[in-house]
């Protein structure tokens, strides 16, 4: 036992264990995010979605992953092999490495540097290199066009995204990711309420950055087949796919950390809302109850035996987790991660919801929206946010009031910009 503690005490070992945990959890989340997307889209379109593999299609991600691994890996004629091989690796590395700076809970992060946010932006901006190189190396028209579109879009919306992040940094006074969350705890308010315009810009830019509908021009099926990864197949395609969904989780994590209080529970400073800490128990209990209910209503034939067994096992697992969470130390330890993931999943649900409900923009509309509306609005927002903060520092105005006034002024500019455009 002592030797184990000694091994754990080395700084590198602990970091490695955390990297492993984050990587595994993230891969699992990404795999089931694809499943959730198919399921939610199906329900929006009044279909059932995947139902065959496992109860309610719960094993579908595993089946899909195996299928992709076993498929033939095709490299098109005339492709630049080295670059073709390199491109998906760059994209995956970029989107997974950035997670090392995200604080998942009070005391659970791989590393917390004092320029954390800058590093997250830096590392995630490397991902676009993979997209552009992959499109070029395929030696084919659709991927090249898709890559060009994708790059133009990412580069333009990155500006608006960064400006939206700046106002959160101004409010927090630090670049450290954990420091930003703690600043929100200290000030007793999520920055989304202090800077609603910045939050909106961040949200729209995040959708554009991850190539999601309604901004999924780079892979518009009706025009470009599949965009930059048209010529990719098998394992390499799955790498691009993984990177895309990991990037979705990443931008959601950044937005949650900066604007929605990260790992804080809602209203962290209100004493009488303390019962909210039992939310994980309720969630797992509800999941377990649902599994048991489905188990009893499932058809009982022999061909359903394994699916019923799996449902029962899932229900038992969820119930056990709920019971385990009732033990106070476990409950306290799980708080940060639970609230963080809950907020991230809320974001991801919105992403999927948008895909199910919004029509796609045209490319020139997208660029005009980015350059003529989002970027000027983001710049104006940063200026007014700074003015509001100076008013509260120098003249002693109420901080919330001056920031609210700043947001109001920004909204006026936004209305003027919108009128100019039309």
């Amino acid at each position, binding site marked *: 036992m002592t030797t184990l503690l000694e091994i754990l005490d080395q700084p590198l070992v602990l970091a490695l264990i955390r990297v492993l945990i984050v990587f595994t959890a993230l891969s699992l989340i990404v795999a089931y995010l694809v499943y959730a997307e198919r399921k939610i889209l199906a329900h929006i379109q009044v279909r059932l979605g995947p139902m065959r593999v496992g109860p309610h299609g719960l094993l579908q991600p595993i089946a899909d992953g195996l299928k992709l691994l076993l498929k033939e890996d095709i490299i098109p004629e005339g492709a*630049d092999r*080295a*670059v073709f091989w*390199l491109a998906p690796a760059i994209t995956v590395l970029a989107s997974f490495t950035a997670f090392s700076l995200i604080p998942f809970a009070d005391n659970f992060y791989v590393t917390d*540097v*004092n*320029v954390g946010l*800058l*590093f997250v*932006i*830096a*590392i995630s*901006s*490397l991902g*676009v*290199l993979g997209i*552009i*190189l992959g499109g*070029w190396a395929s030696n084919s028209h659709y991927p*090249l066009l898709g*890559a*060009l579109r994708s*790059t*133009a879009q990412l*580069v333009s919306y*990155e500006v608006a995204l960064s400006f939206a992040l700046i106002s959160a940094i101004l409010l927090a006074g630090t*670049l450290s990711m954990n420091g930003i969350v703690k600043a929100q705890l200290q000030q007793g308010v999520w920055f989304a309420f202090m800077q609603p315009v910045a939050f909106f810009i961040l949200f729209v830019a995040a959708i554009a950055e991850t190539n999601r509908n309604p901004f999924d021009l780079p892979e518009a099926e009706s025009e470009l087949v599949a965009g930059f990864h048209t010529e990719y197949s098998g394992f390499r395609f799955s790498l691009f796919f993984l990177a895309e969904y990991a990037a979705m989780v990443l931008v959601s994590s950044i937005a949650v950390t900066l604007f929605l209080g990260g790992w804080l529970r809602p209203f962290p400073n209100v004493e009488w809302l303390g019962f909210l800490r039992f939310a994980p128990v309720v969630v797992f209990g509800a999941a377990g109850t649902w599994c048991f209910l489905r188990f009893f209503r499932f058809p009982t034939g022999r061909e359903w035996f394994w699916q019923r067994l799996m449902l029962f096992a899932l229900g038992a697992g969820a119930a056990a987790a709920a019971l385990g969470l009732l033990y106070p130390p476990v409950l306290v330890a799980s708080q940060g991660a639970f609230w963080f993931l809950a907020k991230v999943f809320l974001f991801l649900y919105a992403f999927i919801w948008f895909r199910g409900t919004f029509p796609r923009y045209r490319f020139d509309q997208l660029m005009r929206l980015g350059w003529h509306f989002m970027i000027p609005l983001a710049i104006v927002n940063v200026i007014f946010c700074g003015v509001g903060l100076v008013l509260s520092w120098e003249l002693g105005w109420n901080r919330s009031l001056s920031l609210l006034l700043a947001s109001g002024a920004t909204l006026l500019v936004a209305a003027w910009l919108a009128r100019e455009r039309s």
Partner: protein
Amino acid sequence: MTFYEVTFYVLAVVALLSAILVITCRNPVHSAIFLVLTLLSVALIFLQLQAEFMAAVQIIVYIGGIMVLFLFVIMLVNLDVAVRQAPYNRQRWIAGFAALVLLAEFTLFIYQGRDWAKLPPAAAEAVQPNTELIGRALFQNYILPFEVASLLLLVAMVGAVLMAKQR
């Protein structure tokens, strides 16, 4: 050799090798990839020197911005025509001579100044969060030169857009 030295030499060798490959590669996209590698290793050397802000900005500006635009332009122009046009290698003897002179100058001056370059070890308080320090320096001590430089860049940018639109 300590871990610190090993990482430094690895990064330095990677930076130099990829810098050489940038100018020897025939394919411009490969050159661009090696340039990215060079810039990335320089950023990591910054990080090793505890200049996190410089490292992050190096990656954001040079790799995330400028190199992406380089690649963008390389893909937009017709490369086959560009390759067939005569490159600037007719002057290789003159260029080689100039490079040798430069090398001799550098060697001489570095050799002469070898004693001045010995910096004392940094004090303990010297290594502090340098983002704030850079912010103070840029926006308080040197605000006027900084703003003049930014205005200059803005004028250049607007001018470039204007000229491109007139054509």
